[in-house]
């Protein structure tokens, strides 16, 4: 066993000296997390393109389009009627605002003008929100007409001159627009901390799994070169060699996770000392399960390229099915399929500790699964592992 441990220590030492490996194992998860944080971690806002057909091309339609374009997150796209109809027909668009040709003329004459929403169904989620935003903008435009009309009604027969009404309306409208009687205050809950709790474990487990499955390539290379065979000509026996390689994979995975968790602790302060220790235990067991998978790949692959491909395939599937990038709802088919992924259990355990403030006792089930995978994987890989093709 001592010799097996020497192999382990040697491999860990080599890992810490290998800049390419360290870049892959440490830098890449940081870059990925930073990317995702930048993309999704802030308070995102609704963004949409408002398709508009403007057959009016006059003052009030221009004002409407200008005000709509000023709304944060909304971009107006002008289309011709035939373009809009074609896109609606093909469902490339679900909602289009049509401004009729006599829009301005009608309003100026004092009559009511009608805008048309051409849509499919309810207009889809985005369409419904666009419609509500457009209605809000129209309400602002409407305000001026409504106020004048109402004022005239209220002041009829009171002998107030028309120009006094106009001046006063303008004065009060301006005042209202600058300082509305009813403002809107927004408060948002959730956001960044949820994002970290949601995605950080997944990204860490993803890259640990990648590292360990790709390290199978190194074992295959050693087998091909004959260095494994050379080790067997020493006093090392096949079991010790195998265990040494397995433990070195576990150690590598653990060291990698340890460094990433320490960085997370330092930057995001998402741990207590106890939860950090609990996370380390989860890391160790996950690393063992991932290492076992890596050993199976090393046993099965005939070439380095084959090992790379198998490692990438397995890892990407486990990552996608394991809820790394999106929440998997309980009871769905995806949740059922996701049970084959190591990441499902590791992410669940991490989230219980980090996000929900649970203890190790609350993670017994996923840890048991991971430990089981490690043991079974180890046995299977030992049965099929050959240090020498056709040999021990």
């Amino acid at each position, binding site marked *: 066993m001592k010799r097996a441990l020497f192999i382990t220590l040697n491999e860990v030492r080599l890992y810490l000296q290998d800049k390419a490996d360290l870049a892959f194992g440490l830098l890449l998860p940081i870059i990925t997390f930073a990317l995702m944080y930048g993309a999704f971690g802030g308070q995102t806002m609704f963004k949409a393109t408002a398709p508009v057909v403007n057959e009016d091309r006059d003052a009030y339609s221009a004002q409407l389009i200008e005000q709509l374009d000023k709304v944060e997150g909304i971009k107006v796209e002008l289309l011709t009627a035939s373009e809009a109809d074609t896109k609606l027909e093909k469902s*490339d668009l679900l909602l289009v605002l049509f401004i009729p040709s006599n829009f301005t003329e009608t309003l100026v004459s004092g009559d009511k003008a009608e805008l048309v929403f051409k849509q499919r*169904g309810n207009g889809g989620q985005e369409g419904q929100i666009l419609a509500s935003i457009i209605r809000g903008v129209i309400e602002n435009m409407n305000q001026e007409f*409504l106020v004048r009309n109402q004022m005239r009604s209220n002041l009829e027969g009171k002998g107030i001159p028309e120009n006094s009404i106009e001046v*006063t309306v303008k004065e009060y409208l301006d005042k209202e627009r600058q*300082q509305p*009687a009813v403002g*809107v205050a927004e408060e948002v809950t*959730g956001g960044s901390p*949820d994002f970290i709790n949601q995605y950080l474990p997944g990204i860490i487990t993803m890259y640990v799994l990648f590292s360990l499955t790709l390290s199978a390539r190194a074992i295959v290379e050693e087998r091909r070169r004959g260095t494994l065979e050379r080790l067997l000509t020493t006093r090392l026996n096949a079991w010790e060699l195998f265990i040494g390689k397995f433990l070195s994979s576990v150690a590598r995975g653990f060291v990698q996770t340890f460094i990433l968790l320490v960085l997370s602790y330092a930057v995001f302060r998402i741990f207590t000392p106890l939860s950090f220790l609990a996370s380390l235990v989860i890391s160790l067991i996950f690393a063992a399960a991932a290492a076992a998978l890596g050993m199976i790949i090393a046993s099965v692959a005939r070439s*380095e390229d084959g090992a790379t491909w198998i490692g990438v395939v397995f890892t990407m599937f486990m990552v996608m099915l394991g809820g790394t990038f999106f929440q998997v709802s309980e009871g769905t088919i995806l949740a059922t399929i996701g049970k084959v992924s190591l990441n499902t259990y590791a992410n669940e355990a991490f989230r219980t500790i980090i996000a929900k403030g649970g203890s190790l006792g609350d993670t017994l089930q996923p840890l048991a699964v991971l430990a089981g995978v490690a043991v079974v994987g180890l046995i299977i890989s030992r049965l099929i592992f050959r240090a020498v093709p056709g040999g021990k």
Partner: protein
Amino acid sequence: MKNLKHVWFIALKDLKIFSRDRASVFFFIVFPFMFIILFNFLMRGVGGEDKRLELHLVTREAAGGLSQQIISAMETKDESRLGPGEPKIVRDKDYEEAHRAVEDGKLAGFLAFPPDFTQALMAGTGTKLEVFTNASNVNNRAALNGLARAISSQIGTNQVVIEASVALLVQGGAIPTDRDSINKAAQQMMNEILSGGEERAGASYITFRTDKVGEVEAENPSNWVIPGYLVMFVFFAAAVTAEIIVRERQNHTLERLLASSVKRESILGGIFTGTVIKGLIQIIIFWAFGILVFHVDLGLSPLAVIILSVLMVLMSSAFALMLATLAKTLRSAASLAVITSLVLAPLGGCWWPSFLYPEWLQNIARITPHAWATGGFNKLMVYGAGFGDVVPSMLALLGFAVVFGVIAAWRFRTSAV
């Protein structure tokens, strides 16, 4: 002519070697499709969501206040009478309960009237509606804000009418100047406005009509899944071939080739050609499968889709060549291929659409060829754009290909054998 022959033979040789490696062929073709099938399954129904928006209102004001009347007027009493696209307005009875529900993620958000709503309006001190939402629910947040602005605007209109009318009437002597008379007149106007109700709504000068042209059909997820993963896997497969030059160097076959009458440029050209041929085979299979099995819609300009695909292959092959001239060992070639693929794919919108990113990140993504490729495909296949709309994407991919190719040629020319 001789050099072209060399290029061709080297390409054929690489293709022969590749075709003999059954595991690589399997992963080159089958693996991407496993992903596509999975994501098609996951994404089905996306884009087909047409559920009516549900917006929650609550008031902290005591019974009898103005907010109660507003909510009562807006509340949906019979959903079946709502027109297409009209949101369902739900009244929540308890503010604290609604607040907890949002924090627990059970409710997306609500709009609340403050306890002093009517009093503040009457006193003219101004007040604020509260929109409380969960950060993850961007849609509901936007809708509630829109509704809040509409309410604010309507009330503002009423306030302007009342204040302006009273001011003019006081000025004209129709109302006495004392505070009580003014308040009484204002209250009377307010009551008239409130009792006007639906009639008053009909007084709106700009109205809406909804023309329903059909139902919402669920978007075929293949229209964005296949292009996204095509871009990723064509690039990944090409990047992995960066090992070829490294292997030729390690095998000493590179030296052997140079000692015969093969030029360095021919070797580079041969490897590039072989990689391009593999990429073309990949995209033919992708699109054939996509059209026949997943019923992908190539949009208004299938030619543009084809050109974009071919340019993607050329760019990826040039990148692989550049990578090959940078890598010193097989292991570093493989690592670089995996690293670049894994960083560029999500940044470039292969895993999820890049329009979900904030503006600054979308701008950064433009340094990736992936962003240009997926952007072009999305424009053509999801947004119904024409050929001309994706010419910038085509030019960008061509530019990347040229830059990578020049770097590769320069480095290979100056590198030791």
